[in-house]
């Protein structure tokens, strides 16, 4: 037993000596003579050291390229699944006479060129015109692809195609940088795409979930504002106003409240700017306050479904509607308030989370409180729901 333990001790002393030899900087005399294992380790160490001096950056680049490649494979899979789902839904709902695949593929590569901004004066109207043309063109395309679809389904299919188009664009842009990086071996080209990838992947995953929501007509997180106004006007008389919006006039605490909602349950954002402008003009500018309700992006650490209040026009998108409302506010000196429901950027395009659904009642109470505190009895108020009305009726 004692002999065995002494052998073990000798063995480990020997190992320690070898380890010491290996970790020391090799000397010429040691390389030429000595233990073959030590020489082998010293050669390996020296080779690795030299390789890392000259090729360290290239190795790093290969690692980054590999990361981008893996994400690109995932993006391609998401893009292809999205395309497949969209084509299947068009076939199911639209019952086209011919195969819609070629038309969908053509649609996925559609481009929208924004107006030139060298002279910014009047750019809002130019942008609005471009967006109007795009909307009309998309709707016409969908009608051709899915002739049997009803208006609600057409809106949902249009939204689905837009999502599939976004996924296609994301995939193509990342593929462009991947190939450019591979072609030029430029660390900076590869680095910028590799660093942005985590956020891009999150958005792509969210868009993938959005596609499912749009093809089946599920409410999405962005519709939080619409759900608030839908609950406020349900059961009241409604009339259509500008571009896909409905208005209902209700009484809250002695105030006349004009509640605006994008017409649902089809996927529709409408033109809230035009709708608000119309109501202001109908009341000759005598509006005591405007309250916009929208979903807002939460910061990391904040809870989904948190309701926040503030001042300003809570209308997202390209900015045309926000601009129009602000013009009216200045013209008639109308105070503006905002109520927002916070959620993640991914949640805003995915099926609505329970936390957001629960937050809707809190938001309604906030709106009522703002009306009570910021206006007097007999005043007229506008409450506008902003967002996509998919899956939300009225």
């Amino acid at each position: 037993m004692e002999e065995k333990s002494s052998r073990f001790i000798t063995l480990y002393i020997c190992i320690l000596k070898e380890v010491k030899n290996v970790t020391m900087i090799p000397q010429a005399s040691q390389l030429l003579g000595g233990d073959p294992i030590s020489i082998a380790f010293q050669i390996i160490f020296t080779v690795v050291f030299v390789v890392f001096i000259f090729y360290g950056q290239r190795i790093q680049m290969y690692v980054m390229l590999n990361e981008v490649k893996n994400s690109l494979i995932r993006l391609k899979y998401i893009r292809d699944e999205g395309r497949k789902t969209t084509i299947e839904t068009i076939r199911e709902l639209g019952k086209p006479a011919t195969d819609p695949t070629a038309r969908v593929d053509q649609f996925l590569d559609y481009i929208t060129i924004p107006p030139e901004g060298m002279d910014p004066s009047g750019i809002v109207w130019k942008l609005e015109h471009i967006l109007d043309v795009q909307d009309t063109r998309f709707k016409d395309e969908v009608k051709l692809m899915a002739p049997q679809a009803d208006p609600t389904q057409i809106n949902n299919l249009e939204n689905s195609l837009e999502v599939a188009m976004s996924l296609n664009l994301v995939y193509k842009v990342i593929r462009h940088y991947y190939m450019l990086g591979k072609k030029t071996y430029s660390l900076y080209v590869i680095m910028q795409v590799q660093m942005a990838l985590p956020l891009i992947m999150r958005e792509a995953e969210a868009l993938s979930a959005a596609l499912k929501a749009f093809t089946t007509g599920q409410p999405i997180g962005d519709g939080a504002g619409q759900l608030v106004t839908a609950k406020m006007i349900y059961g009241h008389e409604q009339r259509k106003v500008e571009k896909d919006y409905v208005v209902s006039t209700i009484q809250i605490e002695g105030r006349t409240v004009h509640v605006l909602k994008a017409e649902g349950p089809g996927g529709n954002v409408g033109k809230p700017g035009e709708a608000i402008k119309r109501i202001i003009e109908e009341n000759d500018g005598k509006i005591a306050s405007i309250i916009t309700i929208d979903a807002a992006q939460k910061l990391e650490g904040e809870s989904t479904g948190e309701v926040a209040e503030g001042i300003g026009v809570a209308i997202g998108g390209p900015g045309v509607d926000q601009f129009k409302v602000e013009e009216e506010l200045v013209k008639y000196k109308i105070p503006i308030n905002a109520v927002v429901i916070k959620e993640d950027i991914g949640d805003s395009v995915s099926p609505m989370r329970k936390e957001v659904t629960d937050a809707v009642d809190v938001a309604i109470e906030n709106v009522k409180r703002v009306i009570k505190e910021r206006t007097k009895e007999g005043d007229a108020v506008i409450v506008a729901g902003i967002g996509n009305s998919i899956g939300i009726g009225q």
Partner: protein
Amino acid sequence: MSEDSEAKEAPEPPQGASSYSFAIIFITLVLSLAALGFAVNSYLTYISRNQFYEAVYATVFLIIGFLGLASSTYMLMQTRGRIMRMRIEIPPVMTTITCQKCGFKNVRTFERGDYVFKQAGPCPKCNDKLLVSAIYREVKEKPKKEIF
């Protein structure tokens, strides 16, 4: 550049783990097991003949064997992870149907055609109109220890 030629250059999504990856993993596994065998052999020789260099060989082979085993296991796990990542997880979406009169509530899986404020037939309790009151997805988040 046409779409076809671009597609050739772009990485293709694997349908599963490629046989090439599996071959590399298998070879690494066999080599690492062989190294472990050599380590045992060298150690036994060292015990019987008391030669120091055999002890060194045993240690080196042991290290190589364990490193090979660890790397092949890691590669296998990575390959499995890639297959898992290829799935798109769609969370279940629920539809809540309520009766405005008696408060009857029914929660079921979302069906195409459901929308908030859709009339969903008569109430089984009071025969009044049922209404889709909410459509949502429930995300079960793991409780995190947040400092901030």
